[in-house]
């Protein structure tokens, strides 16, 4: 199989993992189809994800559709800026474009493996918090399914852009994905600037999941 094909099969972004989990939350049958509040965005997205997961389609097809959902729910442009922070200025417009593409891809490559494992979880939206400068954080608990040791707290931070709310960060048990990658990228940029970061991203993407430690570990057993 062509390597690109392999990646796309694995393509579920890190951001989606919680969204995928949220899928089972579609317990609100009558929910409105237009998602104009942050809470509705999270609820509606969860329903759409559930619809895909429980459809009879092939994994490839499911992943393609989940990808579309993620790309329309997450504001990757803003996410890229947040992750690069002050380093954004060092990047040329082309480099920024490349970064966004490679980063998106890196996330999908890394987190695509688990699509078959979701389904039994339930997501309960427990509240929302208005942040000081306009963002809204929707708080949820993921219960059951693969999560054997209790509830997992997942927060979604949303920001409005042109009248629509987009997810700009996912915070799992207090750990912000934006913050996590920002710290890691900062170290790489310190060592070799934007070029080094882009090279490492490409390298990681090119290696795909074939070289991931998880694979080799599994084979050993």
């Amino acid at each position: 199989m062509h390597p690109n094909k392999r990646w796309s099969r694995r393509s579920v972004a890190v951001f989606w993992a919680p969204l995928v989990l949220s899928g089972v939350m579609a317990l609100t049958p009558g929910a409105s189809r237009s998602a104009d509040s942050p809470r509705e965005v999270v609820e509606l997205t969860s329903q759409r994800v559930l619809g895909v997961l429980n459809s009879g389609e092939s994994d490839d097809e499911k992943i393609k559709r989940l990808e579309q959902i993620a790309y329309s729910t997450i504001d990757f442009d803003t996410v890229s800026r947040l992750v690069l922070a002050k380093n954004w200025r060092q990047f040329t417009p082309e480099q920024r474009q490349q970064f966004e593409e490679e980063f998106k891809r890196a996330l999908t490559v890394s987190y695509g493996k688990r699509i078959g494992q979701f389904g039994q979880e339930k997501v309960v939206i427990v509240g929302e918090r208005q942040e000081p400068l306009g963002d809204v954080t929707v708080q949820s608990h993921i219960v059951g399914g693969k999560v054997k040791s209790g509830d997992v707290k997942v927060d979604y931070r949303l920001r409005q852009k042109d009248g629509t709310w987009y997810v700009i960060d996912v915070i799992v048990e207090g750990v912000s994905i934006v913050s996590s990658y920002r710290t890691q990228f900062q170290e790489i940029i310190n060592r070799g600037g934007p070029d080094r970061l882009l090279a490492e991203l490409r390298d990681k993407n090119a290696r795909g999941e074939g070289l991931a430690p998880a694979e080799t570990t599994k084979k050993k057993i």
Partner: protein
Amino acid sequence: MKTRDTHGLALVAAVMALALGSGGCAASHGPHAEPSATAEQEKIDPWEGGNRKVFSFNEAIDIHAIEPVARGWNKIMPAQVQESLTNFYSNLRYPVVFLNDLFQGKPGAAALETGRFLVNTTLGFGGFFDPATTWGLPRHEQDFGLTLGHWGLDSGRYLMIPLLGPSSVRDLTGEIVDIPFDVVSIVASWYITLPARAVQVINTRSAFLDIVDENRRAAFDYYVFLRDAYLHHRESELTEGGAPARSGAAEELYYPDTEKDSP
């Protein structure tokens, strides 16, 4: 091995506490091992050099011993058994949770925890089942590290502990203070304590196989990922899921200054 993770529920929590994840990129690529240069990181992790060595050691132990055993455990043990064991160890944490609730001036939480303990120890058959959660008394976590934080202490320097994983000066102090209140350690002799701990470690690790895999794969530098995750998770435990105590940090995170010199 750390006990707070057995009920730490959170993927991240357990990943961190066991800390025996693999370094994937971090371990296998020389450049990643270079210490970081930013002032902020030097402040929180001035012992990065030594910490990274301990980290590599922990990774090796996990990859070659703990994870394989946990995978086998996961295969042979029914999910209900694993869950019951998790409940059992969680229930034994009661004295630690109770006392730290009191130390933090939360008598209500301490009382609820007592109710949980009584219900689960009796109706839950020695803690193997968790009817209390069903009845609206969910488990919550406490430790002396959080108490110190509650009293206003910063986490202090980041520390990677051999076999135990990520910690900090404050949290390690807390772990040590909590030891005398740990039921498994105080009630039983070593020939019970040791196997009990071993089962606890393997059982906990087996609940986080996929998550650790995922984090290893996704991280560009797993050491840095783990450090960041640990510190942020602890911070969120301290604020109990509310807004971060340091709102300046949140503002920097979500409104970075990217506009200058931007076209």
